[in-house]
């Protein structure tokens, strides 16, 4: 083997090694590309919410003599359901102190309306609807309450009233707190 041939072979080996290295680099190139991640946030807002549902009026029935009391926690009371997702306060406006005759313009029939609220199985104590503030708190499972509305008419009021039909209306107000 001549010196020229040895030099040529050495150069070729170097070139070959360089080619292999470059080829390896090429093969590895995609491996250098890293997975990328990017993130966004999903958002939502739930606004304070309350709803009152139900129907049915409070009826004292036919009164001929003597008074009557309807327990707001009993089955004869008018009931409404309150659904809420935040702490609320229930108040009553326009609470009548007397039921008014549906015909004519005679004197009213004095009445006291009482209210109570049930969360779970327990009723609160009955209280005068006028000025009542019934606080309902959101608990782990408490998002619904039942309002009961009863009242009383005294015997004296019945005795003094003109025969007829009497009625009155109150408004339930649910306020966030």
């Amino acid at each position: 083997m001549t010196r020229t041939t040895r030099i040529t072979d050495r150069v070729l080996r170097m070139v070959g090694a360089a080619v292999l290295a470059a080829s390896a680099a090429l093969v590895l190139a995609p491996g250098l590309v890293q997975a990328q991640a990017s993130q966004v946030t999903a958002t939502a807002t739930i606004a304070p919410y309350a709803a009152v549902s139900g129907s049915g009026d409070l009826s004292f029935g036919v009164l001929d003599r003597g008074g009557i009391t309807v327990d707001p926690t009993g089955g004869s009371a008018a009931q409404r359901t309150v659904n809420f997702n935040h702490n609320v306060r229930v108040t009553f406006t326009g609470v009548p102190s007397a039921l008014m005759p549906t015909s004519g313009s005679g004197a009213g029939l004095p009445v006291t309306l009482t209210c109570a609220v049930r969360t779970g199985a327990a009723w609160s104590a009955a209280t005068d609807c006028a000025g009542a503030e019934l606080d309902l708190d959101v608990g782990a499972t408490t998002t619904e309450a039942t309002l009961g509305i009863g009242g009383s008419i005294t015997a004296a009021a019945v005795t003094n009233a003109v025969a007829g039909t009497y009625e009155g209306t109150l408004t339930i107000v649910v306020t966030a707190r």
Partner: protein
Amino acid sequence: MTVGRRSRLPRTAWLVLAGVVASGASSAPALSQVLVTADQQLDFGLLTPGVPMTVVPTDVARRAAYTVATRGRYAITFQLPSHLVEVHGAAVPVAFGDSDGRVEIRHRVTTFDPAAGVSIHINPADSDARIYLGGTAQPAPGTPAGSYSATIIMMIVPTGT
């Protein structure tokens, strides 16, 4: 004879080497230059307890939006939340349907299931891909008021040129 062989073969080899290097230089950066931008949050807006709210991926104002600026083939997957949560721990379930994902590459539109992910191919003539996500929030009755959020992570992995 010896002189001719000595002068031709190295030149050929160097040409091959140059070609390999040039090839590597032109393809590897094209794969590695991936610019992913999160452009917009997924905004379900104001919810009412008990009433589901759906954001479709064509909802320009409320969909989640990403831009992927690159070329080549990529696999895109998502880490999707099952709930939006608020600071006190209350949660709103969130779901992603079969067509809540959308890819737009120029005028080509593909819908996909975000849970399954999608493969995209951005041709050299294209500049980028737009990825959009919708979803449905399902607040249960009685869900407390508050601000709810969760993170959606998009992952992109090159799969070829």
